[in-house]
């Protein structure tokens, strides 16, 4: 909503000393934010000049050399406008003038002196969309009465200031100058002046010849009046200027009045050419597929959620959104039928979202006060009488099912102070309501506030408390802390612990988008789920919610690779989403991607390989307390995106909680490794409390064995046998070498370091050797393995 200061002045007196910025800031403090606050025409150093002489420029086919009287001197000015000529009065910007497009300087134009500029209106800052064809194409010609040497902006009555407000959705009442006047009046404690509605009326009562039918509950109020014999012409300057200041293009006096009243009172009106309408006007819901040509010339197919105005036979307008072409006001219009009505906010919103969001639809959506609906009708006919020479026909046809009663709300200072944390007394409270123009009635502690119908946003006590807070001033409220008893706050730090662990292992944390492309959503997994597609994606590139984080991290890897970063070790904790059997769900996942160098030093270098990323997984699992409860197993199904020989499912307590592997060489030539763990699934598995275990005072004994064994037998399988055969005294076992080469055929050599120990004594060879023998025997029996001597 753009507020014109000149317009506002009609309804409330604002001290001239309050500049526009201050006014805007004061409005902001009571909750009305603004985007800009400035002069309507910000150009400086403009004077009215008279063109004394105008000759063609000797070296140009379109420039003119003019001598212009600007009051105290005569200036030579070169002018390129086609409509410049001797004798006219014009707007001259002097040297040093600041115009929207730059500063005017004295200069030589193709050899001719030029000491200023003759201006078009758009050159001083009036948008072309507001201008007549003449003004769009040339300089502005002032009338003969314009006083030479004086300020042209003042003469044109364009000396206005405007504030562009960004209003909150609840304050529909501020979409009118009158509403603004009440608000400004409350701030500066000024009384609001109401608009003049007095007019004559004549002729037969309209009710005898015209009827209003409403066939939908989505119209609660419909008023019709007729004004006869209007003369269509240009609007008076004050109407045009105020429309321009408010961002609306002037058209002719009749159309301008409908817009003027809407700006003034907040009630959108619609004017019909009464002669192209029958003697009935109807409001109903559109039929599906019904066709209407709106006044912008578009043929529109309507739906049954659109409210339409009809002449009893066919639709002639989309209620609250746009009129029809057939009944539009034209140059030839004589008689005008005026509609002032209230339509359902949600229906209007739906239709306008589809067709056009306009000044009118915006006001319907925010809600209207029916008293204004009546007032606007009277104001419109008054203005048509005064500025379009119209004759107002007696009587108005009214359909009204609104129950617009003033609300009465009881409130106490206790209510106010307990919610605001203030210490406001009764007198201060009453003072606030007086400034707002709310009537009050005091009965003991209880203040009964009568809320004017214009404030449709106020319906409960808390709304009134907000009003008190606004006008009393939030800045006057001192901050404190809640007095509730001290209690411990709780935060689950698991994510943080995992994050810190991953960072300590050298990985960089990323934060990627949850929305990805649907062609990636089923990658890196064989899990069954339905993908979750957006109904209306912003781009097809991001049209679905991810299930796995691996595609996100792989994209990040590709980005960095494209920027010549080869060592990428990254991780993220984020959510994956799914739908299964009509159930929607999301899981927190830990995902990591590693490629490039891991250890870096002068003589040592180690690139990331499967065992490094596996080490990262084990570090995290061990850290979270899952020691000895996990294993890495071959996936039952082939997952195409992984290297088939370097992929494993991560199993904890026999449940698959994640996947680890190398990305298939066909996807990435570089060796890129990833893992992903479903944290919800993992952390569901209980971990025991950390407890101290007694440290043995007896030394342990290390023995190494190496076995020749079938290549296909995994370390996991061998270890299980060793562990079982080793019994209690085998406290640890570790593979320290795996060796294969062609001479060994389909065998490999695996070397283990075995640790034996006891809590009660020092073990001797006599005790250890039989255990080793048992282990070797067991391996021989299970795998046909041989001890290497």
């Amino acid at each position, binding site marked *: 909503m753009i507020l014109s200061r000149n317009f506002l002045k009609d309804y409330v007196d604002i001290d001239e000393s309050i500049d526009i910025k201050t006014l805007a800031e004061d409005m*902001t403090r*009571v909750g009305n*934010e603004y985007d800009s606050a400035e002069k309507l025409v910000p150009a400086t150093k403009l004077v009215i000049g008279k063109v004394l002489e105008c000759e063609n420029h000797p070296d140009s086919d379109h420039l003119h050399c003019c001598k212009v009287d600007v009051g105290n001197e005569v200036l030579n000015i070169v002018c390129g406008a086609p409509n410049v000529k001797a004798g006219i009065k014009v707007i001259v910007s002097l040297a040093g003038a600041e115009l929207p497009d730059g500063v005017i300087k004295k200069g030589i134009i193709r050899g001719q002196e030029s000491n200023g500029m003759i201006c078009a209106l758009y050159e001083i800052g009036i948008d072309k969309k507001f201008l007549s064809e003449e003004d769009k194409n040339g300089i502005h010609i002032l009338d003969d009465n314009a006083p030479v040497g004086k300020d042209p902006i003042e003469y044109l009555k364009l000396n206005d200031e405007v504030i562009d407000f960004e209003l*909150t*959705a609840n304050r529909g009442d501020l979409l009118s100058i009158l509403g603004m006047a009440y608000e400004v009046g409350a701030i500066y404690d000024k009384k609001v002046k109401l608009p003049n509605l007095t007019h004559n009326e004549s002729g037969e009562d309209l009710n005898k010849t015209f009827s209003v039918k409403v066939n939908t509950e989505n119209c609660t109020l419909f008023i019709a009046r007729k004004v006869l014999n209007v003369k269509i012409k240009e609007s008076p300057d004050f109407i045009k200027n105020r429309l321009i200041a408010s961002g609306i293009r002037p058209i002719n006096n009749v159309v301008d009045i409908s817009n003027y009243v809407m700006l003034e009172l907040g009630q959108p009106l619609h004017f019909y050419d009464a002669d192209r309408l029958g003697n009935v006007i109807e409001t109903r819901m559109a039929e599906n597929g019904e066709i209407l040509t709106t006044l912008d010339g578009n043929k529109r197919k309507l739906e049954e959620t659109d409210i339409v105005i009809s002449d009893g036979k066919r639709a002639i307008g989309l209620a609250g959104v746009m009129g029809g072409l057939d009944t539009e006001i034209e140059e030839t219009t004589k008689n005008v039928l005026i509609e002032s009505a209230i339509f359902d*906010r949600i229906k209007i*919103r*739906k239709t306008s979202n589809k067709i056009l969001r306009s000044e009118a639809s915006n006001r319907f959506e925010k809600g209207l006060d029916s008293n204004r609906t009546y007032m606007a009708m009277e104001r419109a006919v008054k203005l048509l009488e005064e500025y379009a020479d119209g004759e107002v026909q007696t009587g108005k046809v009214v359909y009204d099912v609104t129950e617009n009663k003033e609300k009465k709300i009881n409130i106490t200072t206790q209510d106010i102070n*307990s919610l*605001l*944390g203030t210490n406001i007394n009764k007198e201060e409270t009453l003072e606030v309501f007086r400034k707002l123009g709310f009537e009050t009635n005091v009965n003991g502690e209880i203040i009964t506030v009568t809320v004017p119908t214009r404030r449709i946003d106020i319906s*409960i006590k*808390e*709304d009134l*408390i*907000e009003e008190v*807070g*606004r006008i009393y001033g939030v800045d006057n*409220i*001192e*901050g*404190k*802390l*809640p*007095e*509730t008893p001290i*209690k*411990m*706050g709780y*935060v*689950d730090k698991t994510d943080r612990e995992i*994050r810190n662990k991953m*960072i300590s*292992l050298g990985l*960089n*944390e*990323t*934060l*990627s*988008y*949850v*929305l990805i492309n649907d062609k990636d959503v089923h990658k890196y997994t064989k899990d069954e789920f339905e993908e979750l*597609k957006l109904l*209306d994606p*912003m781009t097809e590139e991001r049209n679905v*919610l991810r299930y796995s984080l691996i595609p996100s991290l792989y994209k990040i890897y590709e*980005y*960095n690779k494209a*920027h010549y*970063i080869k*060592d990428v*070790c990254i991780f993220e904790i984020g*959510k994956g989403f799914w739908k299964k059997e009509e159930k929607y769900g*999301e899981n927190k996942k830990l995902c990591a991607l590693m490629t490039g*160098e*891991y*250890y*870096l*030093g002068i003589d*040592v270098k180690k690139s990331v390989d499967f065992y490094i990323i596996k080490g990262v997984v084990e570090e995290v699992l061990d850290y979270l307390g899952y020691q000895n409860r996990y294993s890495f197993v071959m996936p039952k199904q082939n997952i195409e995106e992984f290297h088939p020989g370097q992929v494993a499912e991560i199993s904890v307590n026999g449940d698959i909680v994640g996947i680890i592997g190398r990305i298939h060489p066909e996807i990435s030539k570089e060796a890129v490794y990833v893992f992903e763990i479903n944290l919800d699934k993992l952390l569901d598995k209980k971990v025991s409390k950390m407890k101290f275990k007694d440290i043995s005072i007896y030394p342990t004994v290390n023995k190494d064995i190496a076995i020749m064994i079938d290549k296909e037998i995994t370390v996991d399988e061998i270890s299980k046998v060793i562990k079982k055969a080793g019994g209690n005294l085998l406290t640890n076992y570790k593979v320290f070498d795996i060796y294969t080469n062609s001479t060994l055929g389909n065998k490999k050599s695996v070397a283990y370091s075995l640790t034996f120990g006891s809590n009660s004594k020092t073990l001797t060879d006599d005790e250890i050797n039989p255990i080793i023998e048992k282990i070797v025997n067991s391996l021989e029996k299970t795998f046909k393995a041989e001890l290497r001597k």
Partner: protein
Amino acid sequence: MKEKIENIRNSAKNKIDEIKNLQELQELKVKLLGKKSELSDLLKGLGALAKEERPKVGSLVNDARKELEEKFSEAEKKLKDKAMAQKLEKEKIDITAPSTKIIRGSKHPLNRIIEEIQDIFVSMGYDVVDGPELETDEFCFERLNLPKGHPARDMQDSLYITDEYLLRTQTSAVQARTMLANKEKTPIRMICTGKTYRREDDATHSHQFNQVEGLVIDYKDKNTSLADLKGTLEIFMRKILGENTQLRFRPSYFPFTEPSYEVDVTCFKCGGKGCPLCKKTGWIELLGSGMVHPRVLEMNGYDPDKYSGFAFGTGIDRLAMFKYGITDMRYLYTNDVRFLKQFDRQDKD
């Protein structure tokens, strides 16, 4: 005899001085002091001497022996020190050459701020609560007093999966969940941090961003008021943005609070003097807040006659950008490793 002993001693001393390594020294020691040495022979031959000579000579021999032994251990120490010094010299390295290290990890700046915010509120007795990112219309809007068709829904253009499910537009969705889950209707003091999503993508908005949401509900007689909201947000903002930060509460409108306030903080960049970032106002709009709307309390099982409270929310991305001087919002989600690696150390207040 005395002369002989003196000779042995002197010649031995000279020999010890000439020795260059430990092994030779050891051999010499055996030769000079061992069982077959001259000194040993002298002692063995004591019996052949006159009785009164014996103690005298014996004492002389022992003195010589003792002296030589000392001389030997001295020489041994000298040689050992020399050997050690040589060894150390040989093992000397250039301590300025680069270390061997595991690559270095880093924490994303947004999570750094989130952890910081969580810690601030936990210290004030707030629980950190989590909620789904794939939310229902009911929890994201309806239970927050935003029925379908409400014009305020325009403020948050949403990403819907179905008519009912959407990516949450605000962490406020967790408010309703927390209130409903609290069956005993005891007081609540919670915050929720996390990802939120809106249908916008431009230079200053990402469709995915992060918010923190706070909710305090208490019995009405505890007078949880706007003043408490002010005090709480003052602490929060000053902790994150610096002790000199000023706050300005502006009445505003949110359907889930009444009264509602937008909160401005003194411009990060100019400190309130006015600059392009704050559009010369000196203020940056940062938070939305207010007293919980009685309808919201009621819809989520808290009797508005018995309880009252406040709620607030803010975007975290902008806080992070300010705090670390990040110039372009896109850095937060591009995950350029050169960007990420800059956040790899402790950052004290």
